[in-house]
């Protein structure tokens, strides 16, 4: 309060504008203005709807309003970066309102991958005052010639939804971009806008221009906290007209109730975790839509045009419900959403809280959310999530070191922009928080990689992609190399997608959207499947196009989509669930079906106490399963899974795959597992397991390598003249992986792939501790079929194998026909 008296008032046009609207500026908005005046980097943490965006832009708008006339046209003043293209359009719309109403002479423009080339060229010639853009565009701008001049007037960089981007490869690339901007414009301060997080200090560190002090110190970005707002009202729909099933992804049993709630709301967002769930949910709602409510579908695989239409209709208030995936997750402020429905467990409270934030943007009114569990186990997960929200308990992203494949991509970009000396950029990289500890040898290795592939042979010296001039400065070899770099910028490695199109190869027609190649390639002519809310008949596939025609009315899709969720339940939710399970006295508070399900689990298998670990073995179809429930978190379980598979392989059981979530680990194999010595299987001593070598054989490593090869620029998916998707142009990285492993096992990209695998999968120390705890506490239930607990984990097991090992050869052997008789003579 004392502070408010001391702070200088907002300049006239701004205070007038607030007054006209009957608002007073919020405390955090004034603090942001203050930080701007003091030229401080700052992180604003606030829930959605708290005037966060305006808080971010106010200092820039004030600066621009107070700026006097200049002799020359000013360059860019403020760069705003958001992780979602759609968000930039939305922010532009919201920002233009106060700018227009105050009559400020401020030019605001957007720049994304969808911006036409002519507009982008114009922006380069004549920069606006404020540019709203994406991290990928910044990466491209880092590869501009003349970037140094263009950015020289920059005063402020705003990063929106920073919590969603900072810890990951996209964040690494973005931070390197910030470090470059810092070279061009050292006085450009950073502003981060974030949702509520567990550890804001980690983000402050990431954001700061100066990282000389790694602890909280003078130079670290300031922290401004927005008002927390009313706690959200979270309801779990555990009593429905349909019976809650044991398994399934679609929440079909609850759709009639969901529809009823949609009818009662103004505009409801129905969130699901995967695109396939979105398709199913949308279909079900349409089938029961007797009231003719306008319900729309929105997910990333729909054609951009279709998504725009839905977004616009939402903004105009024309829709009553939108079934959507995380493409609608971040910060979008459309229309009057007053109810958020989450179908199937939200997999992480931060994610849930974000989604709840979508409802009701008046900060003083509580947001409403409805969780609809898809099956009985999920009821427990949803209850745990509800508790977490009430206690404001959040999952945290760990800080990590910057990835070297990202560094390689960025370095190539710099070489395309202007010549550099190695020493200079090395120093520059170390000013970027994720790369603060970059060693000179690692840097040199990355430079050698960018230049000629980083191979022990000198084969590629004559094909260098970047070369040194007489002064020793590095620059890109030619325009063609630079062009290829620009076509492949970004840290999101796309899954190979194919177009789903009407018409035929001879007369191709409208594109409906895109789907994963791995799904479409399993279809044969006549198969039917669901996409974009409709059922289609697959006709044929030519290169990157899949031609379909509408299936006859009333068709059911023949080829089931994968319902599997790719998200893991966060760790502490797993602990809560475990407690709920073990507390038999508390079962009476749970819905009947859930209690019944727990009772069946107890009858058929076991209910483990909180310090026991249950292991179940059973056969289903051709496969043999071992499911254990350590409740130790997905990362630990993933490592454990590889270790167990290694041991099962040694025991001749031919493991093929596994799935790990935060409470369970399921491994499947070609041979029975019921008689495995479990004490030996889970024994603590890991020497002699050769886990790293085993992991190198896994498909996870291969996939990791594929991504590193793409991000680092070794393999370029997009080539001039070939706008084709993954499989056509991309050289098979599996072939390269095997050859490289044999001939240069310490190559940079293999290191990158292992580092990725490690941060995603390998936590040997933790697993050691887990194994120590488990000793003597294993309870084995040998079953004739899956237990109720096992079912959800098993549903996530896909078709892709996970392990290397001998299973493949045995599979071939078993399938091979007895066509080859044993020879009597020993011919070679």
């Amino acid at each position, binding site marked *: 309060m004392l502070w408010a008296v001391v702070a200088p008032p907002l300049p006239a046009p701004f205070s007038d504008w607030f007054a006209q609207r009957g608002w007073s500026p919020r405390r955090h908005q004034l603090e942001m203005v203050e930080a701007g005046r003091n030229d401080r980097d700052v992180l604003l943490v606030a829930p959605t709807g708290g005037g966060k965006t305006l808080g971010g832009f106010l200092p820039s708008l004030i600066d621009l309003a107070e700026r006097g006339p200049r002799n020359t046209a000013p360059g860019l003043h403020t760069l705003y970066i958001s992780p979602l293209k759609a968000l930039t359009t939305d922010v532009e719309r919201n920002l233009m309102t106060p700018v227009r109403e105050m009559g400020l002479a401020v030019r605001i423009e957007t720049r994304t991958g969808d911006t036409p080339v002519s507009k982008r060229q114009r922006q380069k010639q004549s920069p606006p005052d404020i540019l709203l853009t994406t991290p990928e565009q910044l990466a491209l701008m880092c590869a501009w010639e003349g970037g140094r001049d263009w950015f020289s007037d920059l005063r402020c960089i705003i990063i929106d939804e920073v919590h969603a981007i900072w810890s990951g490869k996209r964040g690494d690339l973005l931070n390197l971009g910030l470090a470059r901007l810092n070279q061009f414009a050292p006085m450009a301060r950073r502003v981060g806008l974030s949702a509520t997080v567990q550890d804001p200090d980690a983000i402050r560190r990431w954001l700061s221009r100066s990282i000389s002090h790694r602890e909280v110190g003078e130079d670290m970005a300031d922290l401004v906290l927005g008002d927390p707002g009313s706690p959200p009202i979270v309801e779990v729909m555990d009593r429905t007209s349909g019976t809650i099933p044991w398994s399934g992804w679609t929440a079909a049993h609850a759709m009639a109730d969901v529809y009823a709630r949609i009818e009662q709301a103004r505009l409801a967002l129905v969130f699901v975790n995967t695109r396939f769930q979105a398709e199913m949910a949308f279909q079900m709602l349409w089938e029961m839509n007797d009231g003719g409510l306008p319900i729309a579908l929105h997910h990333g695989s729909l054609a951009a045009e279709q998504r725009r239409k839905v977004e616009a209709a939402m903004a105009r208030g024309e829709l009553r419900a939108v079934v959507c995936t995380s493409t609608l997750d971040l910060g979008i402020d459309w229309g009057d959403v007053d109810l958020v429905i989450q179908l199937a467990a939200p997999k992480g409270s931060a994610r849930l809280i974000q989604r709840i934030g979508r409802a009701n943007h008046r900060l003083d009114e509580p947001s409403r959310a409805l969780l609809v569990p898809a099956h009985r186990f999920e009821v427990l997960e949803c209850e745990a999530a509800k508790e977490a929200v009430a206690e404001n308990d959040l999952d945290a992203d760990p800080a990590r070191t910057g990835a070297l494949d990202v560094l390689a991509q960025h370095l190539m970009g710099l070489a395309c922009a202007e010549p550099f000396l190695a020493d200079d950029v090395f120093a520059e990289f170390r000013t970027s928080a994720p790369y603060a500890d970059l060693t000179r040898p690692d840097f040199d290795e990355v430079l050698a990689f960018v230049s000629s592939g980083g191979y022990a042979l000198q084969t590629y010296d004559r094909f260098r992609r970047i070369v040194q001039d007489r002064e020793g400065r590095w620059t890109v070899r030619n325009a063609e190399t630079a062009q290829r770099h620009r076509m492949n910028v970004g840290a999101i490695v796309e899954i190979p997608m194919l177009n789903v199109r009407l018409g035929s190869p001879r007369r191709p027609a409208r594109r409906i959207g895109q789907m994963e190649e791995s799904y479409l390639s399993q279809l044969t002519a006549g198969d039917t499947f669901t996409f974009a809310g409709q059922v289609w008949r697959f006709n044929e596939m030519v290169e990157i196009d899949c031609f379909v025609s509408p299936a006859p009315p009333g068709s059911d899709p023949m080829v089931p989509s994968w319902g599997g969720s790719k998200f893991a339940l966060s760790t502490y939710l797993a602990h809560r669930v475990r407690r709920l399970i073990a507390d038999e006295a508390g079962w009476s508070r749970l819905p009947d079906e859930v209690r019944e399900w727990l009772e069946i689990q107890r009858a058929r298998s076991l209910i483990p106490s909180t310090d026991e670990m249950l292991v179940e073995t059973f056969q289903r179809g*051709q496969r043999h399963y071992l499911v254990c429930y350590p409740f130790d978190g997905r990362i630990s379980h993933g490592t454990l899974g590889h270790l167990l598979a290694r041991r099962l392989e040694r025991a001749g059981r031919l493991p093929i795959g596994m799935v790990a979530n935060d409470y369970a680990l399921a491994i499947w194999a070609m041979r029975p597992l019921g008689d495995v010595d479990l004490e030996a299987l889970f024994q603590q001593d890991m020497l002699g397991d050769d886990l790293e070598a085993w992991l190198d054989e896994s498909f996870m490593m291969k996939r990791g390598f594929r991504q590193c090869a793409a991000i680092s620029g070794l393999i370029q998916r997009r080539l001039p003249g070939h706008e084709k998707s993954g499989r056509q142009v991309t050289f098979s990285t599996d072939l390269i992986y095997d*050859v490289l492993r*044999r*001939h240069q096992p310490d190559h940079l990209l293999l290191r990158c792939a292992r580092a990725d695998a490690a941060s995603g999968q390998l936590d040997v120390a933790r697993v050691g501790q887990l194994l120590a705890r488990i000793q003597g506490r294993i309870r084995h239930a040998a079953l004739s079929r899956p237990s109720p607990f096992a079912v959800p984990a098993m549903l996530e097991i896909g078709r892709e194998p996970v392990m290397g090992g001998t299973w493949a050869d045995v599979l*071939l*052997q078993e399938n091979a026909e007895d066509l*080859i*008789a044993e020879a009597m003579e020993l011919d*070679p």
Partner: protein
Amino acid sequence: MNALRRSACGGCQLDLQGERLVARVSGALWLPETRTLAAGDLHLEKGSAFGARGQLLPPYDTAATLDRLLAEVEALTPERLVLMGDSFHDRGAVGRLDQVAVARLEGLSQRLHLVWLSGNHDPEPPEGLAGETVDQIRIGSLILTHEPSPDPVEGEVAGHLHPVATVRGYGTRVRRRCFLTDGRRMILPAFGAYAGGLNVTDPAFRGLFAEATTALIMGDDRVHAMPVARLTVGV
């Protein structure tokens, strides 16, 4: 189709037009009667071909391919080695071979009769390398050539198509290189480390065989036989 028999090496032995053949686990073909070893589609220097175009693939494919080829030569001590076309990925490939690779090929040509068949990627004889270059070679009643005749034919052994087979089981699938034969003609798998493959269910293979076709699939240490009709359609 004639009987297939298991060789001690794990490969598959069969007769084609009266000639005995062994389909080796490595993807090479052994003709014991004339002590001829054949391997197709090595695509040497494919890695560096991409390198010249800006994609710096690991330049170890030639070494890896020659490692496997020489291991077969050591194991079988052939008198003649027939490389069945597309031995080099492009016209400049020979010039990109490093000294070690050149020496190895030279060494081969000194210990056996080295025959290069011309392929579509390498229609000209490899400059500076020893060995005889021909479009096709007759061995007994067999003709070895690079590109397979488009219609059913007797006694032809060819490459060019890089056949691979996909087999399903246990809810997953396995994809491996394979030989294709109907007892009258044969198509070899690609031998090269970076050669890549085309699924035998692809239309490119249609019409080549008169009779039911068998895929001889290269496992880890044995060749497995499967009728093509039972294989999984795929890529």
